[in-house]
């Protein structure tokens, strides 16, 4: 039990928000409440509601605080923190996939790196299920707020790709010694944005299936037909192609969302 914070009461009356322990004490202590009432005879309701509100307000999550340190707007940080595919179940599943890929990569150094092969697969799934009417619990409510749908989509895509990039980077470092040297970034981005385009147009499952399917087809074709599959999958010409696909998908997404014809509720009506 703390002592009566008499010296703080005038400051609280002027609008200072005390720490949680003192707020809790004032709420429970008739003496302090009476003293504060005497200091604030005119708008007690406002003060008490403010105090109660501060008591009830949740602390920002770790992700929100981290994004805040990077200068991200608190509303966008909160929006990013509720991304469905950044929840524990998805993260653990992704980590499991990368762990298995790392083991396989370490087991057979001569084969194509499974870490680099699964990078676009995991990203495509995470991106496809990150935003939209069928995966966002409060989608209708959120969509009716002033938050720009383009911003919403890009925040979710960026957040998911950033998290996946960390996973791939770490897995690549520990299994290939970092030899992947970012060759995975553009194919991962291209495949996941392709998934996003199709997910926005249809359903998340279709987006994920299309992106992953196309990537798998490319891998199988390269392994079957090419003398140097790694060159086909991650060579300079391929990187250029991935860059073009990335730019095209981004342009399509922005155009659709800006025109208001996609990410609307027509597809789930």
């Amino acid at each position: 039990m703390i002592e009566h914070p008499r010296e703080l009461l005038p400051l609280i009356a002027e609008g200072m928000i005390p720490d949680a322990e003192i707020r809790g004490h004032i709420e429970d202590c008739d003496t302090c409440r009476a003293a504060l009432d005497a200091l604030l005879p005119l708008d007690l309701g406002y003060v008490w509601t403010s105090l109660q509100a501060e008591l009830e307000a949740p602390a920002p999550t770790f992700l929100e605080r981290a994004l805040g340190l990077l200068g991200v707007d608190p509303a966008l940080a909160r929006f990013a923190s509720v991304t469905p595919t950044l929840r524990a179940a998805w993260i653990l599943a992704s980590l499991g996939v990368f762990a298995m890929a790392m083991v396989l990569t370490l087991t057979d150094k001569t084969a194509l790196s499974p870490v680099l092969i699964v990078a676009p697969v995991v990203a495509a799934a995470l991106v496809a299920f990150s935003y939209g009417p069928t995966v966002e619990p409060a989608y209708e409510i959120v969509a009716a707020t002033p938050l720009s749908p383009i911003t919403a989509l890009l925040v979710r895509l960026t957040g998911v790709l950033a998290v996946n990039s960390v996973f791939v980077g770490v897995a690549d470092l520990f299994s290939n010694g970092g030899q992947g040297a970012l060759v995975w970034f553009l194919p991962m981005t291209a495949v996941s944005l392709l998934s996003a385009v199709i997910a926005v147009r249809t359903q998340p499952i279709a987006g994920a299936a299309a992106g992953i399917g196309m990537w798998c087809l490319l891998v199988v074709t390269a392994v079957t037909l090419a003398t140097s599959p790694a060159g086909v999958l991650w060579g300079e010409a391929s990187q250029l192609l991935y860059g073009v696909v990335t730019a095209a998908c981004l342009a399509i997404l922005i155009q659709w969302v800006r025109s208001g014809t996609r990410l609307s509720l027509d597809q789930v009506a």
Partner: protein
Amino acid sequence: MQIELNNVVKSYRTARALDDVTVDLGSGITGLLGPNGAGKTTLIRILATLMSPTKGTVRIGGFDPQDARQRLEVRRRLGYLPQELGLYPRFTVFEFVDYIAMLKELNNRRDRHQKVMNALMAVGLEDLARRKIKTLSGGMARRVGIAQALVADPDLMLFDEPTVGLDPEQRARFRELIAGLGQERQVILSTHLVEDVAAICTSVVVLWEGKVLFHGTPAALRAEAEGLVWSSPAPEKDALVSWRTESGKFRVIGAKPSHDATPVDPTVEDGYLYITSAARLKVAA
């Protein structure tokens, strides 16, 4: 906040949800009445700027929701409770309403928290602010939905089937709440419960198969069935509608039954049943 819809059509691949809807909605509380599939949710979603009409024009407070900048202005003035209320189960009640308040550009943390608490108090959830949403009953979750719609003090509030899942006492409280809100801002609520409309609405729009069948006051809707409602000892097969009441007699809407029937004063529900039944009969013919 004036709302104008002119020749609004909304088509899906296989169906026409709204068919040439032209209606002006002024201040007060407007009830959108109609059976399931009448187009109420589509109309509410268009007003909530979540859908675009296939044809026609919509103006909300003078803003055109088709234009991105004007759509943003509408959203800044809007509070919306969807029919299928999705919430984040792991959030607390306060956390969820605070989250939506953040997205509604309430950037000052202390002011926002104050408004969140005020909204929770308005719906009687202030003592449950720390409860996880997943532990709430359906009625409580609905009140969270109402609180998030209220939190930014909007000029226009849209409620889609707001009393679904509420018990009779909660419905009565909700009506009181909406009646209070409607004195200061425009409220549009969609429902298939006529008693909700009769209790609190200042105007009614009856939708049927995507068309506007009626637009006027609840009293005018009641008057539609004037002289056409009867209390009869037996069912009437030629009536537009006929059903057994708690007294054991039958309430009959239509021309005077052949039985020993006595005329009774119509209710708003009678007016609604009369015009929708007459429309159904007209289509069948």
